[in-house]
């Protein structure tokens, strides 16, 4: 009947897989940076995270006040340009902006230290367990199963109740369970890589197991670890804040977002800025980390599944 353009009904969405074979040649593979920068979420995440890192590193220079400077005359000053406290002051007259900037140092350091320790231990054990299997693998399987039986936050709270608040105590408590995810992913990846031809070839050439693991297999799984590390980092930072909020994480003398939010709770009705701004700072950093992590995953490791 002719020219009328006919829309099909009951269309199904999602996979254009059936038409994918019609789309012909694939585009040239661009480098890592161009691809990350052309990934909308990844770019935004990178900008947010970099901004936080710059602020955290330069906090002593950038912050208008010392984070601990108490000024009881200027308690609970509302945010504003005129007052000299852009984001207001807390119940002790401390400048909230300065404390948020210094708090960023604490949060990022905890996140970084925890992820580094977890990744180091987890990847190491995971690679060995995945490569050799055997008794060690079985023992670790039981042990990780036990660790996974505890909800993360409960585990860390239990550990902190024994160790007491403190920066390094918190890092160790978080890492003590944090390595399990790196372990599981590294182990699974090594199990699938170790039978590939390039590993066989290295073995035939007489390379030692240590050389094969570090020089042949590790470079092939490092991307996945980087993605996991970035995604976990946001989690660790939320967990740090949660514990500091309860008074079990970073000791009160250090400025931490979680304890700032806890301080602000009591003044929520009269001075909501005390708790609101540190919360926003936290949420934005975590958002940035998650965006960056997903961006990295899309760019580096399209195979890796969510969750």
């Amino acid at each position, binding site marked *: *009947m*002719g*020219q009328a*353009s*006919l*829309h*099909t*009904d*009951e*269309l*199904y*969405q999602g*996979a*254009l897989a*059936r*038409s994918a*074979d*019609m*789309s*012909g*040649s694939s585009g040239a593979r661009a480098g890592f940076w161009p691809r990350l920068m052309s990934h909308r979420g990844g770019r935004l995440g990178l900008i947010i995270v970099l901004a936080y890192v710059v602020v955290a590193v330069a906090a002593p220079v950038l912050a208008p006040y010392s984070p601990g400077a108490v000024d009881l005359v200027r308690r609970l000053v509302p945010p504003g340009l005129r007052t000299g406290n852009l984001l207001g002051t807390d119940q002790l007259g401390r400048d909230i902006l300065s404390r948020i900037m210094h708090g960023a140092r604490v949060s990022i350091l905890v996140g970084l230290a925890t992820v580094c320790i977890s990744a180091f231990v987890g990847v190491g054990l995971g690679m060995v367990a995945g490569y050799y299997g055997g008794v060690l693998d079985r023992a670790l399987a039981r042990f990780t199963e036990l660790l996974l039986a505890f909800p993360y936050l409960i585990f860390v709270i239990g550990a902190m109740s024994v160790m007491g608040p403190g920066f390094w105590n918190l890092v160790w408590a978080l890492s003590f369970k944090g390595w399990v995810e790196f372990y599981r992913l590294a182990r699974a990846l090594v199990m699938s890589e170790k039978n590939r031809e390039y590993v066989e070839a290295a073995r035939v050439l007489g390379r030692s197991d240590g050389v094969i693991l570090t020089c042949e297999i590790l470079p092939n799984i490092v991307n996945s670890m980087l993605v996991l590390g970035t995604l976990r980092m946001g989690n660790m930072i939320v967990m740090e804040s949660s514990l500091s909020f309860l008074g079990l994480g970073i000791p009160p003398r250090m400025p931490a977002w979680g304890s700032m939010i806890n301080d602000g709770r009591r003044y929520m009705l009269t001075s909501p800025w005390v708790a609101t701004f540190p919360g926003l700072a936290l949420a934005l950093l975590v958002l940035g980390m998650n965006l960056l992590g997903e961006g990295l995953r899309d760019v580096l490791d399209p195979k890796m599944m969510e969750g």
Partner: protein
Amino acid sequence: MGSVMMHEVASGVDAGAAAGAGMLLDVRNLHTVYPSARGNVRAVRDVSLTVAPREVLGVVGESGCGKSALMLSIMRLVPRPGRIVEGNVRLDGVDLLELSPAQMRDVRGKRIAMVFQDPMTTLNPAHRVGDQIVESLRVHGMTPSGAGRPEARRDCLRSRLWQGRRDREEERDYVIELMRRVGIASPEHRHLEYPHQFSGGMQQRIMIAIALACKPRLLLADEPTTALDVTIQAQVLDLMEEINHDMGTAIVIVTHDLALAGDFCDNIAVMYAGQIVECGPADAIMEDPLHPYTRGLLLSMPRLGSRQPLHAISGEVPDLTSVGAGCAFAPRCERRTSRCEAEESPLVQTRDGRVIRCHAGTIVSL
């Protein structure tokens, strides 16, 4: 037997309604596009074909030539954002593209059924195979006793409740009978099993059973044997042949295997770059292909006892977003002329009733 009739693009108007008379399926000047980031993919370009009752038609071509898109267009199941832009699909004279969604749904499964390539992914892993067979009946409100006779029972809730149990027993017997019909051993137990408990060949038989549940007049089979072992392939083809013979179901089988189509089909349509380039009786095409592409396909088939090296068609399948004015096959064609690159040949009917779309082939055959 079935005769294939093609319609010349230029004379599409006067080819008229008469040409499709008596045909079960009559596709005319069908165009389907998939918009993509790089432009519109013209997956089906001006395809016309007919299928007579009881006919077996093979649609042959390389992957990506638009065979599957053609089947999905006939079913009006082109995945979004793809769409049919132009043409007609007539089933028994009724244009399917004019039907309402509900009317079209009634056609699917009941009058045209479809079988897909990979039974492993096509059967729903969460449902028992028996239930999946019964579902075809139920959605069309049919009772097993007369799968050909549509029942209005679904409109009457009371009678449905009343006869619920008897219906279910009847349905179960029908499912078992159908499974036996497609060659599944001990169906009285196996209809309660899940797809993953069957082998690939058995899964394909189940898919065929689902397709046959409503006794459709036309079966579209999209590479039904590609995912199967060679020995199983032959069994499934035998089954389809039997069905064609015993039940009178017309079959359109899509395949990339020209030899299979030559053995199995009455007629063959060869597709290239979204178009039909040659179409005619299977014997004629297998013996004397006219289009250089068909010839290339035939020469690239291994033959028993032949010591000649296999022929390969050079070049690649063209990008369907950028088909120009000339013949799509010209860049790969050994016999191309300047004319081939300048303009596309119309579909031309040859003396022996075949249709081809080629300047060179036309000259040879006339």
